[in-house]
């Protein structure tokens, strides 16, 4: 009984199918299941919405077209025309983070992005991808990214060190932002939910109203965090593609 009131129990990874490969445990876990659910939901949404292909879109098709336009505008605004080449990646990234966050809001589901390893894998892909893109496009000239123009020579060594450190911290900040938002949000929901049960009649309608408001906030945060992850990816891509121009 105490286990059900533990707010951290929802983040437990459970094996659904044991798949030992060699010495490693490659089991299909609840995390993997919800990743599959998210990808299936995204694919189903986009395929079904666009299956009508009418010139004047209905509601569902509008939603699919809106999501396309939203990301396309974000990339064009922040990374320019050259960034549109990476549209499939950034669109997939946005939709995956968004759907994982939203599916986690359904009671009794598992939030895929509430584990640091998942968000860190995504952030690392973005970081390494953007760095490789920068080096391929500019060669060693890419390193001038760390040397801002118009800086007096005396400050230069210190500034370069600071710039390099702030560049290296990008995958960490990107992943921790998403992970901590999701974990803290869902933990808060569980804790306040248990208050509703524990206070019962004494609290009246106030704890429940607060939990409803908090759930609404968490849905907003799900969208916001997906948006922020994606727009920061576009900004980092812009840095790599166009250095500081």
């Amino acid at each position, binding site marked *: 009984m105490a286990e059900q009131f533990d707010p951290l129990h929802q983040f437990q990874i459970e094996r659904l199918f044991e798949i030992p490969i060699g010495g490693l445990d490659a089991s299909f876990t609840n995390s993997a299941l919800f990743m599959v659910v998210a990808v299936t939901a995204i694919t189903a949404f986009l395929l079904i919405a666009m299956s009508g292909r009418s010139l004047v879109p209905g509601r569902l098709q509008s939603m699919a077209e809106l999501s396309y336009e939203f990301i396309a505008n974000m990339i064009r605004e922040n990374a320019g025309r050259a960034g549109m080449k990476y549209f499939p990646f950034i669109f997939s990234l946005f939709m995956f983070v968004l759907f994982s966050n939203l599916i986690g809001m359904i009671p009794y589901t598992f939030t895929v992005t509430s584990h640091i390893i998942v968000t860190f894998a995504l952030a690392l892909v973005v970081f390494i991808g953007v760095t490789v893109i920068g080096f391929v496009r500019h060669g060693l000239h890419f390193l001038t990214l760390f040397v801002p123009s118009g800086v007096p020579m005396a400050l230069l060594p210190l500034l370069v060190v600071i710039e390099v450190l702030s560049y290296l911290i990008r995958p960490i*900040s990107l992943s*921790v932002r998403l992970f901590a938002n999701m974990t*803290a949000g869902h933990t808060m929901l569980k804790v306040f939910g248990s208050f509703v049960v524990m206070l019962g009649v004494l609290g009246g309608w106030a704890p429940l109203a607060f939990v409803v408001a908090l759930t609404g906030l968490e849905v907003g945060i799900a969208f*916001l965090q997906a*948006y922020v992850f994606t727009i920061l990816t576009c900004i980092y891509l812009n840095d790599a593609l166009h250095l500081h121009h």
Partner: protein
Amino acid sequence: MDPAAAKLIGAGLATIALAGVGVGIGNIFGSFVSGALRNPAAAPKVFGNVLLGFALTEAIALFALLIALLLLFVF
């Protein structure tokens, strides 16, 4: 000092960082409202930047939370 007690005190001290974050978030939205009252037509265009700024500042709060949790549960 008892390590368990030190952990709890450390975690409590780590939350002092949230004061700065509160000031920062208030600053962002205060400037936005101030600007929007002067130039309502430009407000929707800059709202995206407001959300970005809010999320980046919130990230600092979450770094502080992360340190508090690290102190409590990892060390």
